[in-house]
């Protein structure tokens, strides 16, 4: 397998979408699509999903349990301070619990986002086309051994017929 890829450059969202549909109808696999803003139809067409909401739920649940354990330990076990004869394991813990669910949920979700995306300060971007963060859309198809010469030609034709303003290989 080589690292080479075919890149179709578009300047219109409608053309990009019709191109994606036709390429998929012909049975070719699109590796990635680049755009200057999020396009929900692209997510659906490429069938990509994320488990971030599940992760956020788990983090928040962990946040709640960990905070309750901490509050219980400090207020009931480690230093049970009596004030006004009220129970140490009190309902007013709910405020701290509520805020810490949000705190830990947010913090860990953000960390997961950066880790999964491999986004750190100083990461060198692999820029396939200079206009992709401005006004251009890209369809990227991996050139692997399974694709015959005829396949490559028909991919090129498909990209071109659907309004690609530029077709490059990298």
């Amino acid at each position, binding site marked *: 397998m080589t690292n080479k890829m075919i890149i179709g450059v578009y300047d219109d*969202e409608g053309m990009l979408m019709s191109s994606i549909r036709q390429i998929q109808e012909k049975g070719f696999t699109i590796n*990635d*699509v*680049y*755009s*200057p*803003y*999020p*396009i929900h139809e*692209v*997510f659906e067409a*490429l069938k*990509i*999903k*994320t488990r*971030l*909401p599940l992760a*956020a739920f788990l983090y*928040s649940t962990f946040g709640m349990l960990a905070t309750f354990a*901490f*509050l219980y330990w*400090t*207020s009931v076990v*480690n*230093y049970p*301070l009596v004030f006004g004869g009220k129970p140490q394991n*009190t309902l*007013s*813990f709910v*405020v*701290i619990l*509520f*805020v*810490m*669910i*949000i*705190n830990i*949920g*947010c913090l860990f*979700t*953000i960390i997961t*986002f*950066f880790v*999964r*995306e*491999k*986004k*750190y*300060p*100083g*990461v060198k*971007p*692999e*820029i*396939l086309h200079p*206009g*992709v*963060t*401005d*006004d251009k859309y890209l369809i990227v198809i991996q050139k692997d051994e399974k694709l015959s010469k005829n396949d490559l030609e028909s991919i090129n034709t498909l990209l071109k017929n659907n309004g690609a303003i530029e077709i490059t290989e990298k």
Partner: protein
Amino acid sequence: MYKTKIRGVLIKGNKSYRQITDDIIRPIEGKTPRWWYIAMTISTLALAMGIWAIYITISQGIGRWGLNNSVAWGWGIINFVWWIGIGHAGTAFSIFLLILRQKWRTSINRAAEAMTVFAVICAGVFPLLHMGRVWLAFFIFPYPNTRGPLWVNFNSPLFWDVVAISTYLMASATFWYIGMIPDFATIRDKTKSRIKKALYGFFSLGWIGNARSWLRFETTALILGGLTAPLVIAVHSIVSMDFATSVMAGWHTTVFPPYFVIGAIFSGFAMVLTLMIIVRRIYKFQDYVTDSHLNAIAKILVFISLIMGTAYSTEIFIAWYSGSEGEIYTFFHNRITGSHTKAFWTMVSCNAIIPQLFWFKKIRSSIAMVFIISIIINIGMWFERYVIIVTSLTKDYMPSNWATYKPTIVEVGTYLGTIGIFCLGVLLFLRYIPMMAMSELKAINKETS
């Protein structure tokens, strides 16, 4: 999705995506205007005054403030609550409108989030100084210690404040930064300056805009939005409980949490309006911050103003209905009439009466009037906090406790200093950060222009 024409055009001028990019990064790529240097100088002077006041407070103590045994909370807490209120703008705007799928947020959310971050930093200065010995401020955090071990009081609203506000600052700042990553990447790819390319490249974290990144980006924004929206309610409810859980007349009331939350959103929206009118004029952004945007904010303000009026009336009614002498005295003889009448009626006029002018379309479409009323609301909201804190504390249940309160130059200086911090932050934001979310503008461009 159901589409309505009620909102009008959100991006005028049938712009191409490249035009949007060029327009938004123009202030960053262009020459620094002279007014910016003048504004920076004034803000730095205000900050210098603040630094002097903070130095005096730390080196000589809280005794340099105008506080006394009866009025133990003065300008420090008034300004703390005022700034926190303004700090609600970003989240109210950005997150509530995001989860409600309101497209008109796109031109304004970035500036509103910036305001939030700077306002919350300003707010944090006051309780920190009010502790007296700031170098021991870490005592407020629950950490293993050799004093018992003695833990903080987890049932105290003052501790809830620490947790809620630090969480709010963390969530707002990261939400703001994550939203900027794609825009930093755009500047990285557009700019010709090598320094800017390196700097924005560093902060864009290698963003390239592929589909999976966009999906995760949007999902993270929604999760942060969904988690932070209840936090907005919690933060100001907790701030209100600093007052409501005490037994002071005028404070000890169950209406405080919703009244404070809505008041905070009121002042935040007003501050967003003030800022956006200035930005749109200076940077000629009339195509992005359209009359339709200003109209929408004005409509929200008139609605919130009605709620504010209802809250004020409820407090007064309950004070009378309770039959409690202390409550009746505070509301009827120390606010509506008495020595704090001016402050009380300024509050009522600015927050509940004058914003009613927004019922008239003519007023809503006059930029000058909208600008003036937005400033009036912020003045009114400052007086609201003054009325709550000072009237109740100066005359409590025991006349032998009664005292007067006047702020000293040190308190005024600290306040001016925080205004300096806020203005400096906003000015740096206007100069170095794309003040509108380009990727979001592009996403709504086709259907709303």
